């Protein structure tokens, strides 16, 4: 049976690649060093396949058809889609995926009340590709992309995200394959994009969130309300990916790799890993 071998969580803003000069170089160096640690952990764990969970930014989905959760079911995907229309600083490339694993999660989920939307072709955006550019630029690790709606309200509740994360761990354990699986959560922490709060970082919220995450208090994260999260920034909803990861590793402690409120990036930047 498959085995969950590693959990990684990181903010996913593309600025770490394409707008580095906006931020304090000391903070950028800390963020870079964190990515290096996460990349090393990924290489050491050597998963056969990883789930990478992120919100996206109205590039694939729109309010004419907005799922709460979706999984890519294919042998490869590509991105970042932003690089096709402008100089985005991250090369457009293909990423190997794992159709059989995705199908397992989808079929099991549809039978057990986790009603995934299914994506069979996907040009992902920076939410996936910025972290992958730092963690696995050569595409050595197969990735199954998972979407959670974190930016286009109404959003799935933290309680539901936590439950889906718990279900994911259970579903991975029931995958009849001798495989090692990692989960990478990307997004957050507090930040706003396109709202009057842009530029403000809720450091207190971020530190509480990260403390709960690292202490294995996923149940506390699941009790956050959408209003509490939204009050800290229009894009903080992306932390739903972290809450899903907390669910998958329910009760397990995590190591805080870094936290910096990077003013130049308008974002509370954080990273953590669960071995």
């Amino acid at each position: 049976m498959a085995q969950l071998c590693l959990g990684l969580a990181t903010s996913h803003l593309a600025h770490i690649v394409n707008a580095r000069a906006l931020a304090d170089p000391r903070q950028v160096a800390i963020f870079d060093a964190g990515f290096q640690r996460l990349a090393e952990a990924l290489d050491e764990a050597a998963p056969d396949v990883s789930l990478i969970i992120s919100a996206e930014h109205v590039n694939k989905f729109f309010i004419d058809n907005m799922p709460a959760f979706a999984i890519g079911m294919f042998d490869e995907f590509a991105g970042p889609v932003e690089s096709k229309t402008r100089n985005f600083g991250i090369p457009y490339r293909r990423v190997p995926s794992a159709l059989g694993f995705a199908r397992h999660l989808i079929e099991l989920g549809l039978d057990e009340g986790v009603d995934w939307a299914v994506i069979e072709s996907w040009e992902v955006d920076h939410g996936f590709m910025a972290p992958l550019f730092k963690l696995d630029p050569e595409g050595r690790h197969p990735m199954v992309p998972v979407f959670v709606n974190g930016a286009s309200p109404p959003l799935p509740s933290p309680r539901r995200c936590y439950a889906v994360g718990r279900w994911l761990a259970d579903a991975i354990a029931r995958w009849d394959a001798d495989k090692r699986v990692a989960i990478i959560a990307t997004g957050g922490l507090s930040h706003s994009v396109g709202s009057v709060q842009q530029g403000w970082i809720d450091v207190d919220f971020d530190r509480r969130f990260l403390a709960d995450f690292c202490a294995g208090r996923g149940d506390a994260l699941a009790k956050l309300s959408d209003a509490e999260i939204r009050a800290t920034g229009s894009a903080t909803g992306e932390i739903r990916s972290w809450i899903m990861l907390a669910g998958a590793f329910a009760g397990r402690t995590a190591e805080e790799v870094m936290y910096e409120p990077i003013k130049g990036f308008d974002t509370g930047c954080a990273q953590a890993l669960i071995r």
Partner: protein
Amino acid sequence: MSANSPDAPPGSPRYALNRAIVDLCRNPNARALIANKAEFFAAYPLSAEERQALLDAKWRRLLELGVLPNLVYRYYMLHGLAPETFPAAIAASSPN
């Protein structure tokens, strides 16, 4: 909804405005189309207030009219404005 379809079904109160912006932002010729945005948006069933907010680039008003913040930001950058100037621009933007 298709912008050019006269029999497009009605959407939620925020739908047409968001549709108009996302269609522009996703268009491969978006940079060229923004130069004549009035013509581009003419095909969409927008209220006079929505249309004016788009044409006058009233960032805060667009938010209040229900535009997704991500789209406000993308629409802002489509005007050739630097991302880091957005906080000051929206702070200076009238809510009306």
